[in-house]
Structure formats: structure tokens, C-alpha cells
């Protein structure tokens, strides 16, 4: 089982604060982290390797500092990592990102399964997995919460949908995206950390990928951001005063007046 995991480095947005004066993101003190959903993807890959043997390769498209994230992936159990980095890749939307990842995966050549996170927490689209699958002409299953079995070149997985979950079978190679219900990621091992320090992580640019210049980065992106703004919050709540009894009484009155009960 040769598995490729797609990882992205993102700002740790749980702590993202808006500066009320300038109305911009406060970046100070915000660390870059591995996109949380991608840690489940990596863990799923490592577990499959432990069960079925094979190799895990972590890939990421991003600026040079994504190297540190890939080292972390190695410390957790990835065998190899490849960084896709080039000025020409900047400003990529999901179409250009998945094209670039697809070029890299084609170059890697040997793979049975490609695992993505369900979505990133900065871009938040969840589109890279399915678009990547299509560019590689591979079957795709989104929102995988359990890999039941891999046998005879077929995988059987559970995937979450609104109404419950489905059990789906598909031939390998395939692309899946995983949700956090799939596992609890491990911590890095001491041996892993040592290995990560000395690991050689190649950086591939547009040339190495033999990529069409018109399909990467901003040039290859079909979408453009034309405006950025901060969500308008409505006006503050009317705070109901008094003892708990009178708070509840006035709430019930308000709800009745508005025809809600």
C-alpha cells in the first residue's frame, strides 16, 4: 500500500482575533499549524501502513516554511515528504492547487490511495480533494469516517452524509477525504523526531513538475477575490433584567408577542 497524504500549513485560526481599530487579522503570536483535518489524514495513512505495509509520502504545496510541517509529518510516521514550492504557485485557487498536486502525484507514479483532509481552516473549501481526484481520473469518496477494509485492490469505507452514514466500496487507486471522527492522531515518537531532523525533503517547482505555467498559481486560477471584509454582527442582544423568574417571564412574553410560541 503506497499512500500519499496531502497536507497544508495554515494559520492556527482558532486564536485569530480581529483588531477592532484596524479591522484586520491580528497575526502576532499566531503559529502556523498543520491543517487540523490533515492530521487525521496523516494518521489514517500511517495506520494503513502499519496494517498493510507499504509507504507513506506526505506532500504539500506552499511557501518554503511548509518544510517544517512536513518534518513534523515525518516525525509522526511518514516515510517521505515532498514540498511543492515555487513563486509561480502563489495565489492558487483550488483549481490550480489540485492541478499542481496532481502533477506531483503523477510524478511520484506509484500510489494506491491518496488521502486529503475534509477541508482547510483558512480556505475552507473542501474542493481540493474532489478536484484532485478528477484531474487524476480516480474514484473519490468524501467525508470518510472509517476505513473498514482494504482487500484485493478494493477499499470499503464509511462516509458521513447528512442523514447518517454510507458504506461504500471502490477500486484502488482512489482519493478520499477524511473527517475527524476517523481517528485520534498520535504524538510524534522520539525516533521519529530524530529521523525528521535529518530527512531530506526535496522541493519541486514548476519545472520539476513539468507543469503548464498557465495552470499553476494565480495564472491558473479561475476565481479571483475582489473584496475582503469582516462579517457584520447584528446589534447587541436586549439583555433581560431582574430575577431569574422575571427574566424568564419577560422572555416568554417576548416570544409570544413575536408569535414564536
Amino acid at each position, binding site marked *: 500500500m503506497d499512500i500519499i497524504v496531502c497536507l497544508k500549513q495554515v494559520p492556527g485560526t482558532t486564536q485569530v482575533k480581529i483588531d477592532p481599530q484596524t479591522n484586520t487579522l491580528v497575526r502576532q503570536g499566531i503559529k502556523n499549524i498543520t491543517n487540523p483535518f490533515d492530521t487525521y489524514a496523516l494518521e489514517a495513512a500511517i495506520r494503513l501502513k502499519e496494517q498493510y505495509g507499504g509507504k507513506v509520502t506526505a506532500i504539500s504545496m506552499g511557501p518554503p516554511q511548509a518544510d517544517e510541517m512536513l518534518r513534523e509529518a515525518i516525525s509522526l510516521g511518514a516515510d517521505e515528504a515532498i514540498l511543492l514550492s515555487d513563486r509561480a504557485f502563489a495565489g492558487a485557487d483550488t*483549481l490550480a492547487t489540485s492541478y499542481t498536486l496532481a502533477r506531483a502525484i503523477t510524478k511520484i507514479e506509484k500510489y494506491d490511495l491518496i488521502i486529503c483532509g475534509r477541508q482547510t481552516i483558512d480556505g475552507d473549501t473542501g474542493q481540493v480533494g*474532489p478536484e484532485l481526484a478528477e484531474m487524476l481520473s480516480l474514484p473519490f469518496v468524501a467525508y470518510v469516517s472509517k476505513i473498514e477494509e482494504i482487500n484485493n485492490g478494493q477499499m470499503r469505507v464509511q462516509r*458521513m452524509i*447528512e442523514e447518517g452514514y454510507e458504506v461504500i466500496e471502490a477500486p484502488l487507486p482512489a482519493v478520499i477525504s477524511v473527517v475527524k471522527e476517523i481517528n485520534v492522531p498520535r504524538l510524534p515518537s522520539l525516533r521519529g523526531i530524530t529521523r525528521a531532523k535529518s530527512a531530506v525533503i526535496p522541493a519541486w517547482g514548476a519545472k520539476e513538475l513539468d507543469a503548464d505555467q498557465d495552470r499553476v498559481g494565480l495564472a491558473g486560477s479561475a476565481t479571483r477575490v475582489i*473584496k475582503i471584509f469582516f462579517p457584520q454582527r447584528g446589534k447587541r442582544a436586549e439583555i433581560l433584567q431582574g430575577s431569574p423568574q422575571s427574566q424568564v417571564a419577560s422572555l416568554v412574553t417576548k416570544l409570544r408577542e413575536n408569535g414564536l410560541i
Partner: protein
Amino acid sequence: MGIRVDLDKCTGCGDCVQSCPFGVIEIVEGKAHISEHCTLCGTCLDVCSYGAISIETAHEAAATDDNHQGIWVFAETRNGNLKSVDYELLARGRELANTLKAELSAVCFGYQISDVEQLIAHGADKVYLIDDPALANHQEDLYLSQFTRLIKEHKPEIVIAGATALGRSFIPRVAAILKTGLTADCTDLEVDTEKRLLLQTRPTFGGNIMATIVCQAKRPQMATVRPRVFKKKAPDNERMGQIIKVDFNKEGVTSRTRLLNFVENLTERVKIEDADIIISGGRGLGKAENFHLMEELAAVMGAAVGSSRAAVDEGWIPYSHQVGQTGKTVCPRLYIACGISGAVQHLAGMQTSDTIVAINNDPNAPIFEVATYGIVGDLFEVVPLLIEKLRDNLL
């Protein structure tokens, strides 16, 4: 490629630093320095008085292919029934079509679909319908081939679909085949009539930032839209429209994925995405058993039970109840948040609710910023009183 600062023109005034929503510009030795985290959003270009910042692309966007016409809504079905998101998209699609003076079509796949005329009653001029046993189980590979074929044949200029599990999974693959742009999870759609551009607004960075996105040169312009952000309209059963039955094209299409089994989630008595009233509990409940309070309140109000992610992560309630960024988007008439702080990711899933009530012991909790009515107090005191009061009222 990328963003450039012309050091001769840059005066180091710092206007760009102030403007950058992502905080990636610094003044270094009197000149603006833009870090690699730049998303190329272009905000700084507009504020720079010296024209010192530019974004280069290898090529200017090619001219729009203007053979494309009309707005399409992908109308999802499940077990032969239309979904409510279909009506929501048609309601907004109708308005956009009127503004653009364009035709609105619905595309509907499934097997033994009832009420197809309802798509017309809710605003469609045309319905492309493929009703075939092969499409009963929404096998995505089959949906993909049929939808792509129809788009190539009829060339709509705009295609929108619900950001449901199905839509978010197969629509990106359609966009990849057509090599066009797709904007995920939109919460607002407008049109620029002059340029015939779809202005697609969506939350990013966990709901901290809103971005308006366009697809300039490629057609169709495609977007998935969160369920429950647009309101469905009352049907007009007199509306005239055309139902075009299309044959399922079997040529060269087999589904590589096979559905073996479906296990329905039974913990939800009332589905939160369809509920009129939602009682939602968060970490403030303290432990799993206390969700009983939520259920009791829900029972007297005929409501569904929702929760924040914190409560789901604690294992107090299954994921299907989670409201927010990575849970469900809901838009009930009444949302009662108990012991929920109102993290931006939670707000992203419920702030369009008509009336929001927050019960929280922390007067500074952000939930009070979006709530209509707030009670600052201990939920273990307030909620039982509320249950009692409502029971009395019903008697």
C-alpha cells in the same frame, strides 16, 4: 508572478500595512515588505496612493466565452423527494435571473421523483429531468457524467448547487472537468449586470473574514451555496414552465464506487436542519446527562436539539447535532443557545436564525453580540424555570 512592491515608488507610509486583512505586510527599512503568506487578495493595491504595489499574472484573463446563457440550479433529490435547499436556490436564482434577464433552469436527477412540477412553481422556467433507476442512489460518478454532459451541451453561464454532502463532493469534480472556477459554501450571491459576473460571497478563515469572489474568464461560473441561507418562497402553482425529460446516457459510464449499505442516524427525533425551533447546548452544560435539560425544553416547545462543537467533542451528543462551520447551518425561526460562548465557528452556522436567545452566565460572551434576547444567568436555574413556565402556559 506574484505581488511586487516597487521600491522606488514605495514611501513606507504604511497604509498598506493598515489595510492588509491578513496582517502580512511590514515596513522593513522604510519599505513595504509582503510576506509569503500573502493571499494576493489585492486589498493593498487599492489603498496605495503611490501605485507602488502590483500583482502580475503570466497572462491577462482571456476574454469571456460569451456563448453561455442562463442560470442553472442543481436540484438534489433523496429517495425521490426534492430537498428544501432546491427551493432556496430557486428563490435566489429567480431573482438573479430576473436581474440578468436570463432563463432559470433546474437540473434534477433521481428515480421516481415526485413533485417535479414544484421546481417550476418555485421559479424554474425549464427543468431538465433524468429519472432513471441507475440514479436512485445518487452514485456520484453517474451524476458527474450526466451533469457535465448537460452543461457542455446547453452552456449555462451560471451553475449553483447546494453545499450539501453530495454537492460538496461531486460539484468540484464537475468544475475540474470543465476547468472552471468554483466557489464553495457561499452565503450570498449577487450579480454584476454589466459584466455578467456572479459575485459570490463566502466566509473564510473560520468565519472571521468574508470574501467576495468572481470567476472572470471561465464559464460557467459555479458556486455551492449553504443550505438555509436563502429563504424559500411560497410556490406559485400557476407558473408555466417546461419539463424536459432527458435520457440517462449509459455510454461509457459505470460507477466506480458502489453503495453497499446506508445506516440512518436515529438519535435525531427532529432533524435540526428542518426544525422551526432549535434548543442548542454547549460546554456550559458540563456533562452529558445535562443534555436532558435541552431535551426537556425541546419537548415542550416541539423543538430539535442542537449543540456546539465543544459538546460534540466531549462526546455528550453525536456529531449530527453540531451546528456551525464544520457542522450544520441552520436557520430556524427561534434558536435558543444555552451555555454556548458564541465562537465565530458556531456563529457561522446559526447567526441567520430569525430570533436568537442566549442564556449564558458570562455577560461578555460573544453570543450576546448576535442574540436578539439575552439572559445573563445560570442555565441550571433559568432553563428549568423556562420549562415550567412554558408547561404552565400550555395547560
